[in-house]
């Protein structure tokens, strides 16, 4: 008994040529086309914002990688040195000598702009101190020409980057209009130039009044040691927990409860883990404050659910026939898991781990709570152990610290820091893809 006979429909339902599209088909096709349109639209909107983001990051962040330097060839004779050292205000004496020499240089170059000690200080900062530091440390350089690359002040830097303009310049103690004439003249003479800012890549956070000396290098090291802690703890714990839950644990209320809670943990806001770390690791266990070790422990707690969920998913995706095959030839449960299931699940596990690590690398909130803020470290840690226990910052926390500072130069540094952070994330993703390729197998 078929539907057709029930309806009493004797004649064929469809008539006409298949070369003519009927109304129903046309309607269906239109619906499909509309849906495709929505999809393409969604992707275009996403791409648009991605491009806007990338352009704004790069355009705001690139100035952080250059710095404005004043290149001055300078000779100091033994007599000048002795004389300066004998005066009461030693650095002022050095400053005077420097100004005198700079004036000579400018005369040679044919630059004629008036300037005084005040403008030198506004442009270069404490020149006298820098010179004195150099010559007291290297007395053998006396009497010989030395080329100094003195960092210009953040305002001059801003003038070159377009952040400071003549029109927008108001009377301030930081920079005057006449100073800009001097800057222009020196730039024309090739005395002031732009150079790559190695300090930004290798240095540590600087004081609030010295954005030129700020660098992200030390906090990169902090992040590195944190990631090491996360990798060493979260990967084995996470994988072991997933293997047990997925392959060995009996299905009962208790394991269901654990499963639900792991999923819930993945959704817990990171700041909660931060305050947990503060209470448990620092206040209760008395681990050193601001240490990458503690940061790593906190981030391990945060990353574990991610790793467990992705590992379980990749274990689940291994076909059961492989397990049957192994058990069928008399392998034990553990042999079947470690010899056959785990190798097949490897690419998924590694991808999940690296995604978890990348997430941890970009996490800021919990680090602020355990004191890993920007300004706590001025130097690279001492040795391998020091890397874990000495107070340090991490990249995102450093970026946050810079972004909160008043000087617009630090804002630039924050964007630059984001570029560095993104480069590291990109690298991790590339590693994830390469590992996936390497371990992927057909079955």
């Amino acid at each position: 008994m078929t539907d057709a006979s029930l309806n009493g429909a004797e004649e064929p339902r469809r008539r006409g040529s298949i070369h003519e599209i009927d109304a129903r088909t046309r309607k269906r096709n239109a619906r499909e086309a509309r849906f495709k349109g929505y999809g393409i639209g969604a992707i275009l909107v996403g791409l648009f914002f991605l491009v806007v983001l990338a352009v704004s990051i790069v355009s705001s962040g690139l100035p952080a990688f250059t710095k404005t330097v004043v290149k001055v060839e300078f000779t100091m004779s033994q007599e000048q040195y002795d004389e300066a050292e004998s005066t009461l205000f030693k650095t002022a004496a050095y400053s005077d000598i420097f100004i005198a020499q700079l004036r000579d240089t400018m005369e040679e170059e044919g630059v004629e702009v008036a300037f005084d000690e005040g403008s030198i200080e506004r442009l270069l900062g404490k020149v006298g101190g820098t010179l004195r530091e150099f010559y007291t440390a290297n007395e053998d350089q006396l009497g010989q020409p030395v080329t100094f690359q003195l960092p210009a002040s953040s305002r001059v830097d801003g003038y070159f980057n377009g952040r400071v303009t003549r029109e927008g310049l108001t009377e301030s103690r930081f920079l005057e209009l006449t100073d800009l004439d001097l800057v222009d003249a020196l730039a024309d003479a090739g005395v002031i130039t732009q150079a790559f800012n190695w300090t930004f890549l290798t240095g540590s956070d600087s004081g609030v009044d010295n954005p030129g000396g700020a660098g992200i290098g030390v906090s990169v090291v902090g992040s590195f040691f944190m990631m090491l802690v996360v990798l060493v703890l979260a990967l084995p714990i996470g994988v072991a927990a997933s293997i047990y839950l997925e392959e060995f644990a009996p299905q009962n209320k208790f394991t269901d409860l654990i499963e639900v809670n792991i999923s819930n943990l993945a959704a817990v806001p990171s700041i909660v883990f931060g305050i947990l770390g503060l209470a448990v690791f620092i206040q209760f266990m008395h681990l050193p404050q601001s240490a990458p070790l503690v940061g790593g422990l906190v981030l391990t707690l945060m990353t574990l659910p991610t790793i467990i969920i992705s590992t379980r998913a990749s274990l689940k995706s291994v076909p059961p026939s492989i397990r049957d095959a192994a058990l069928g030839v008399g392998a034990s449960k553990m042999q079947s898991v470690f010899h056959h299931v785990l190798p097949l699940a490897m690419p998924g596990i590694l991808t999940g781990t690296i995604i978890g690590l990348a997430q941890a690398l970009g996490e800021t909130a919990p680090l602020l709570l355990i004191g890993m803020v920007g300004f706590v470290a001025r130097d690279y840690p001492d040795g391998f152990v020091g890397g874990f226990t000495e107070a340090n910052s991490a990249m995102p926390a450093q970026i946050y610290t810079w972004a909160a500072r008043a000087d617009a130069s630090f804002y630039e540094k924050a964007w630059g820091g984001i570029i560095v952070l993104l480069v590291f994330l990109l690298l991790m993703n590339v590693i994830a893809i390469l590992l996936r390729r390497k371990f992927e197998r057909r079955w």
Partner: protein
Amino acid sequence: MYDAPLRKTDVETKNTKIVAQDVNVYYGDTHAIKDVSVDLLDKTVTAFIGPSGCGKSTFLRCLNRMNDTIDICRVEGKISLDGEDIYDKRVDPVQLRAKVGMVFQKPNPFPKSIYDNVAYGPKIHGLAKNKADLDDIVEKALRRGAIWDEVKDRLHAPGTGLSGGQQQRLCIARAVATEPEVLLMDEPCSALDPIATGQVEELIDELRGQYSVIIVTHSMQQAARVSQKTAFFHLGNLVEYGDTSQIFTNPEDSRTESYITGRIG
């Protein structure tokens, strides 16, 4: 080959290998196997036939305790191999499975080389003393699996790269490599074409000389071609068990006759 006459064999002289007594299997609340008692003979091919869902695969998987891997599965009754209860507390299923090998419905070679596929079992059971020994075992198993000539030049090619029929024979070679006493085959030819099926059936007939082979099949012709004993399952009951020739020519139970003639199933 397909019209081969039913074999007349003197099954009465063979020893009993596996004895099942009042076996009941439950999946949760589902009663999958009901009071099955059967004596399976050594050096004999026994076929389990019956419509889908009748419990023949379930019963087969009870014989090497593969059902242990299913949490909700519960087995009652007694199954003994050479007089020893296989559901005894002292039995490690791993040791049991080394004695009772299994070939599955879908060819499932490991995603490793042909050599490693066969060598895996002997390796984990410590059957080979050295590399040369292992090489011998692998060659012998592949020869017994009737696939040696096809793969001897590419032992280190992936096992998954073989054709379906070759993969299934590789799986049989893998199963015999551990020197089992009983070989369970769960619809080994359902994924194979007639030519590969013919090769596997020939192979089963050769294996009979050394093993007790128990094969689940949906093909009545296959049961008639390869087996000496046949058991017909229906709705979890063992309806009839006897010589294949008798089951197919003169069944005692009306349900068996209906199934064989195509009226139920």
